Structure formats: structure tokens, C-alpha cells
């Protein structure tokens, strides 16, 4: 029995390794406010909302809204990562905590959640060629 116990433990680990776990992913791209970016994409003009200043329709005219992305994230509108190939991932984290990084180059590591979402474990922003950890502290 004493010989069998360690083997039993090894077998359990082997079984655990075959079990399904949430896939870990890392995505890199531009941090956007997903509502404006989503609406601009629907209009076929995603470039209107890839930066922090967005073009919006007001009184029948297109006008520039400075720091629109930051304002949207401050309100709790989800932030997202737009990758080089144009795919958008909704970041499941506090949007308000990332408001100052909208339009910056970010790298998000976490677990795939739902369709198109990533439960962020780590959020980094590229500054002066180096990655800086800006992971929201609360509830992560």
C-alpha cells in the first residue's frame, strides 16, 4: 500500500492535466473604448475611434470630441484591445482604472471569457519601449 500511494498521486496529477481549464491568452494592441470603437466599426470607419479623441455626430455635423475615450472609460464603458489583425477583445476589468491609457499600446494576459472577452490577470502598457504593469488593483 505504501508503494501504491505515490503512484496514486502521480495518476491523479496525470488525470488533472488532461482536464479542461480556461485557456490562457495574451493579446496585444491598442486600448479602445469599446462603445465608440464598436459604433465607428459598424459605420465602416473604425479609425474614427481608435485614438482618444473621437469624431461624433452632433446637430448633423461631425465634430471632434477631445479625450472621448477617456470619458467613456470613466463612465464604465468597457475597454477593449484592438489587435493588429483587427480583432477586438473586451477586457473584463475595471474600465475606470484604465481610463488614462486609452489609445495606448497595451498587452493583456488572462483567461478567455465568454465570446470575445478576456478576464484580465495582467494589464501592461508600453512606455518608452518598456512594458509597465498597470493592472487594476481591486478585485483582480
Amino acid at each position, binding site marked *: 500500500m505504501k*508503494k*501504491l500511494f505515490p*503512484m*496514486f498521486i502521480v*495518476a*491523479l496529477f*496525470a*488525470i488533472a492535466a*488532461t*482536464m479542461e481549464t480556461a485557456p490562457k491568452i495574451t493579446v496585444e494592441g491598442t486600448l479602445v473604448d*469599446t*462603445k465608440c470603437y*464598436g*459604433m465607428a*466599426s*459598424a459605420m465602416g470607419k473604425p479609425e474614427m475611434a481608435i485614438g482618444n479623441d473621437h469624431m461624433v455626430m452632433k446637430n448633423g455635423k461631425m465634430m471632434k470630441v477631445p479625450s472621448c475615450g477617456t470619458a467613456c*472609460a470613466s*463612465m*464604465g*464603458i*468597457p475597454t477593449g484591445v484592438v489587435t493588429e489583425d483587427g480583432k*477586438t477583445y*473586451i477586457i*473584463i*476589468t*475595471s*474600465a*475606470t*482604472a484604465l481610463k488614462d491609457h486609452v489609445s495606448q499600446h497595451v498587452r493583456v494576459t488572462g*483567461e478567455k*471569457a*465568454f*465570446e*470575445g*472577452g478576456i*478576464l484580465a490577470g495582467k494589464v501592461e502598457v508600453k512606455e518608452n519601449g518598456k512594458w509597465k504593469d498597470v493592472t487594476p488593483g*481591486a*478585485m*483582480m
Partner: protein
Amino acid sequence: MKTYFLFSFLVVLLYAASACSSEDAPEATAEKTYTPGDSLEVIGTLVDTNCFSRDRANIGVDHPHPAPEGQMGPACARFCARQGFPVAVLTGGDPDGKVWILLTNGQVLADYMAGTVRARGLVRSDGILIPERIELKTDDGWTFIL
């Protein structure tokens, strides 16, 4: 020799149990496809994506707080929404139903977490909706909330 026989038997038994549990999983069915820009209406429970994605039992307003681990967080869903975590509509009436993340101001919806809502809007992609109108189910019917 006897030990190795028992070990082999144990491994086979564990793999068999593992295979049986996966056979019990519901069969995959042909899923509906959604095209970006399509109009869509979804009805379901308003959940906070932070806690619900970690454990599908976290549907109500009060549920275990992720940090500190396991500590019950009163009104946790409202707290998450107010912090700016995305909110979503869980459809299908059960925890394994389809989830639609709402690209909207979740803070405004914080008071309605765990309520039954009807969201109408445009499909951003499969599972992601840009809502144009959100209503809450009340005793008087559907009440406009956003």
C-alpha cells in the same frame, strides 16, 4: 508485481471515469451565427462579468468576492458594475446560457444587477451587443432604464 497490477488498474479506472464524465456532456448543437450590425433583442439576467466569468454560480447580487478569496461580498455585483467592470445579459434561464456582454455604461446599471432585463441593439460580434435600449422587468411590465 501485485503493486504494478493495482496501479495499472487504478489508472485505467480513473481514465474510464474521466471519459464517462465527458460523454455525459451535452452534445454540441448547431449554433446560431450573428453578423456584426444585426439588430438583436436579448432577454435575461443582468450579471457582472468579473465574478460570473470566474464562477457561473455568481448570478445574484451577493456572491463570494474574488479577493479576499471566498469572502462573501454583499452587493458584490453592484460593486463590480460601479467599478466599471463590464455587465452582461445571461440568456436561456440557466447558468450555462449564452452571455451577451453589453458595451454600455455599466455604472448606470449597477442598481439593477441580477434583475431581468431586455436589451435591444446592434450586434458587435457574437456575444457582444451595443445596446440602444435596456428595460427592466418589473411588476408593471418593462421599464426603461437606459
